[in-house]
Structures are given as C-alpha cells and as structure tokens.
C-alpha cells in the first residue's frame, strides 16, 4: 500500500507539472493531459509493483537464510496476495474516501444532468478494481518468479484496459462490463496459478474432505 501511495505521488507530480506548464483554458489539451496522466500512473503503479516484488524477493532470501529448516515462514504466493490486497485497498481507499465524505453531506446526485448512478457505479468500479489488484498481484509475482514475461505484460495490458475503459464513463456499460469480465478472467487465472483446479473447487463446494 505504501508503494502504491508513492507511485500515486509521483504520477500526480508529473501530471501537476504538465498541467501547470500548459494552457488551462484549452479543454481538449487538459483532457489529453488527464488521459496521459492516467496512463502514466498505471505504468508507474506496475513499475512500483515490480520494485515491491524485488524488495520482497530480497526479504524472502533473508528469511530463508535465517530460518532453521531452510524455508521461509511466508511463501512468495502469500506475499503476492498480500501485496495485491495492499495495492487494491489503498487504491480503493483513495477512490472512495472523498466520495463517501461527500455522500454524507447535503446534496442531490446528478442535479446538473450527470448520471444519477454516480455513487453506485463508483462503488462497483472501486470494488472491481480492488479485486483486480489482488489478482494482478498474484499474476504479476508469478510471472516474475517464473520469468514469464508475457504474464507480466498481460497484467499491464489488463490494467491499462480497465483504466482506459473508465474513460467511457458515464456510459457505464462500456466500463463496468469489461472490467467485470476481466476480473472473472483474472480470478480464474490466478486461481489456477495458485494451485487450484476444477476438482479442488468441486470438492470444496461439495464439502468433501
């Protein structure tokens, strides 16, 4: 979560500089800058995820060296999951906290002609992003572990797609539907990578030992 915060800080710094250096009255330019800011932020987040992976790798090596039986008390998969959850929670907190604070106060949603489902869709979008971050964490770390670069690029591409789809807002079908589909795909993929299988799932659901 801290790493996500730092990436957010850096990307907003870049965006801020870009905005200050440009003409504030040009609407299209501002929109373009915003899009650039979003994409850059996505790339930075993934870069920081990679950095975090490197850091955790070192930590695991240290733990393995220290432990008595040669294996660390926490596996890299668990760390991947935790990292993903951290990223997700922080991004979710940042997305939602202002909204929630405003939701308490007096006001009408969409009074100026905007969508009335603003809060609802924001909530769903945030939720899907949190889940996605968790799954991306697992996928990303797995890709780094086994040197499968296509997995890493897949994660980055997915992230860019989800962020890009949010440009369709307020046409919510364009952003929520793809995001949820991607989330289902990522969930299945992460599940399979973590050692799950259809058999496991069936056994779990039928409560067999």
């Amino acid at each position: 979560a801290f790493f996500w915060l730092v990436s957010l800080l850096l990307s907003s710094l870049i965006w801020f500089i870009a905005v200050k250096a440009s003409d504030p009255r040009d609407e299209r330019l501002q929109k373009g800058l915003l899009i650039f800011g979003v994409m850059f932020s996505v790339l930075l987040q993934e870069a920081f995820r990679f950095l975090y992976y490197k850091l955790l790798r070192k930590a695991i090596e240290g733990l393995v060296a220290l432990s008595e039986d040669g294996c660390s008390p926490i596996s890299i998969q668990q760390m991947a999951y935790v990292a993903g959850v951290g990223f997700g929670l922080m991004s979710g907190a940042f997305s939602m906290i202002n909204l929630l604070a405003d939701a308490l106060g007096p006001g009408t949603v969409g009074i100026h002609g905007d969508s009335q489902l603003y809060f609802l869709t924001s909530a769903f979008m945030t939720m899907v992003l949190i889940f996605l971050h968790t799954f991306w964490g697992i996928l990303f770390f797995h890709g780094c572990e086994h040197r499968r670069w296509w997995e890493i690029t897949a994660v980055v591409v997915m992230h860019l797609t989800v962020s890009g789809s949010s440009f369709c807002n307020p046409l919510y079908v364009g952003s929520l539907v793809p995001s949820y589909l991607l989330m289902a795909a990522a969930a299945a993929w992460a599940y399979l990578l973590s050692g799950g299988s259809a058999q496991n799932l069936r056994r779990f659901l039928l409560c067999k030992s």
Partner: protein
Amino acid sequence: MITFMNNSDSEEEPCNERTSLMSAESPPVPSYQDGRQASEAGEAQGHRKRRAGSSRSPNNIASGERSDSRVPVRESTLENEEEELTLKYGAKHVIMLFVPVTLCMIVVVATIKSVRFYTEKNGQLIYTPFSEDTPSVGQRLLNSVLNTIIMISVIIVMTVFLVLLYKYRCYKFIHGWLILSSLMLLFLFTYIYLGEVLKTYNVAMDYPTLFLVIWNFGAVGMICIHWKGPLQLQQAYLIMISALMALVFIKYLPEWSAWVILGAISIYDLMAVLCPKGPLRMLVETAQERNEPIFPALIYSSAMMWTVGMAKPDTAARGSSQQPWDAGLFACPSSIQSTVPWKQWICLRLQVNLGQAPVLYCAYSLLSVYWVVDDRYISGHLTIFPCVFYSLLQGLCLTLLLLAVFKKALPALPISITFGLIFYFSTDNLVRPFMDTLASHQLYI
C-alpha cells in the same frame, strides 16, 4: 546486560517507577495570557520534553559485548536465532503499536470534529510568543522559526536538567516532578476537556457529579500510572493522555510553528540520541554505568508499562511466577529464556522502543489532525488522512526495522515525522488536484 534483567535488588523503587507513565515535566510557569494557559504551558513544555526524551531505546552495546566470550560457532547459530527472533517479535510489536497510535488519532480527530473549542485560537503559550497573524508570508515564517527556536531550546534545557538530576541522584525530585505533572494532566486537562464536551452537546452536569467523575478518573489514573493496574486500563489512560496533549497543542500552537517544531523535534531527537554528547545518550550510559534499569520513571516508564501490557499474555501462557512488572522484561518464549540473556535483551529492546508511546501518539495525531483544523479541508477532502496515517505507520515499521538492524538506541520520531510531513504537504498540493480531477470525470487509475 544481565543486570537489566535482575530485578532482585532495589525492588521497591523500580516497582514504583516502572509503572509510572510520565516523564519529567516542569512546574507551571506564569504566562502572559491567562492563568489556565500557565498550566498548559508547563504541560506543553513537559510534553515537549517528554517527546524528546522518550523516543529511544536503551543502548545495550555492553550487553552485546558480553556475548563475545562465547565460542564462535555457537555464536553464529545463536546470532541467526537472534535475528529470527528479532524479526518475529519485531513484526508482532509493530502491529501492537499500530493499535494505540490509531486509537489516539481517532480520539483526537473525533474531538476536533465535534468540539469547537479546540479549533478556536485563543492566545498562545508563553513558549511561542510570536504571533502568526502577520500580513506577510515572510514575517509569518520568521515568527514560526523564532517560536521553534524558543521551544527547542526549552526542550534542550529541560533535557539537560533532567540528565543532571539523574546524574546527581536526585530521584526524589524527579519523582515529585512526575507526580505533579501527571496530577495536572489527569485532573486539570480532563476537567477542561469534559467541560468543553458537555458544552458542545449541551448536557448539564452539576458540580458534585463533575467532582466525583473527575476525582475518580484522576485517582484511578494516578494509581494506574504510578503503581499497578489492569493492563487495559493502563493502555486506555495512555491513549487518553496522548489525546489530551495533542488537543492542547492543536489549540495553543499556531500552525506554521507547529510544522517547524515537528521538523525541528525530529532533528533534535536524531542528534540527542545519536551524538556522543547527546543528553539522552548520556542518560542511558549513566544508567548503564550504575547497572540500574534505566530509570523507568523518566523515559521508559511507558515502555515498561507497555511491556507489561504486551507481556501479560506471554507470561500467563508460560505460567511464570514473576511479578507483573517483572514479566515485561521476559516477554520472550521460554525456549530462549533458559540460556541466552542477550536474546531477552533483544526482546526488551524491541519492546522498550515502543515505549515512547504517549509522546509518539501525540506527535502522530498532531500531524494527522491538521487537515481537520484547516478550514480549506472542510469540504471533505479526506484523501490526506489515509496518506499521512499510512506514511506514519510505515515510518514506524521502518524505525523498528532499523532498530533490529543496528541494535542500538535509535530515535523513533525522525523517520515517521519525515514521512508524515512529506506525504502531508505533497498530498495536499499534488495528489489532491489530481484525484479531484479524476473523480470529477470518474476515471480510475
């Protein structure tokens, strides 16, 4: 180092001192505003002093050296175990520290949001005589710097005074000082706080009831702090006291001065602990020379208390027959307690570092509530809070990690405060417009 674990001698004194919460504090000095501020001035000064004084853990190089006499082979395996233990206990204690810090912040934020009194600026402490109501930015900056210089010099003087007192064994004086300060905090500030809360919620309370309530609160607090008490109660008092202190500071310290003071305190902390002639370091070394548990009443008392707090579950599990306050030093699993004293030292050191509790929480909650106080943020810009909160916690983790790595006395404040300050200002100016624009277009990153 073993002497730190020996509690057989002078049991009476450590018993009384160990569970005491406060560190040194000066008697109230008259201010030029009104009488009440005088007490707050004294409190503030003491708070500042405490903040400087209690933010470190003991320097136990001597104990480390004792292990040099072992066989090198055993030493390496033992070192491994030591580090593993360090990591394990470090993690647990970091988590244990999060809870009180969070609670303190919550209490302070809740109070600030609801009770108007603490956001009204009614004068300043005598320690910050320069006002910040000046028209120009430069003048304001200058005033805040001057305020900081005065405050820091007061802290330095108090710390040196404390060290001298300790050096010349004026224990009774220190005792009296502590008792006086805790008395004032528990009774006077609680009275003011309760009064304001009642005013805010328009609840009438007659004087006899008020007297009863405050008397009970204060008396139980004094007993918990200076003697023994149930674990949860001690922790609760700790949090209440930190919150009260933070509130006083928010009320009486002008904004820019507060920022500069926070920065200066962390620098001072760094120097006082790490420089060879630093007063805090001298305190630790003097205590070591005398083979005493570092005068718990002064600085580690909260640590000891906190250690007791954390140790209780362990000792209960192990069925130790030691006294509660004693158990704090041995809050390590029995497997290592048998042979290796210096492992216990690590546990102790880890736990002791966490003991700057009241002051730390105060500082942290100060940082985190400034966004609430500032009028610009009334429109619900809450993004700063998780930023600052989280960065503070990270700073805490990092400090504990460094403690495990360096194995000596480290100042606890600088890293966290630096992180907090950086994140506060950068979030305020950079992240907020970005997030606002994103939210208005409903874009997600």
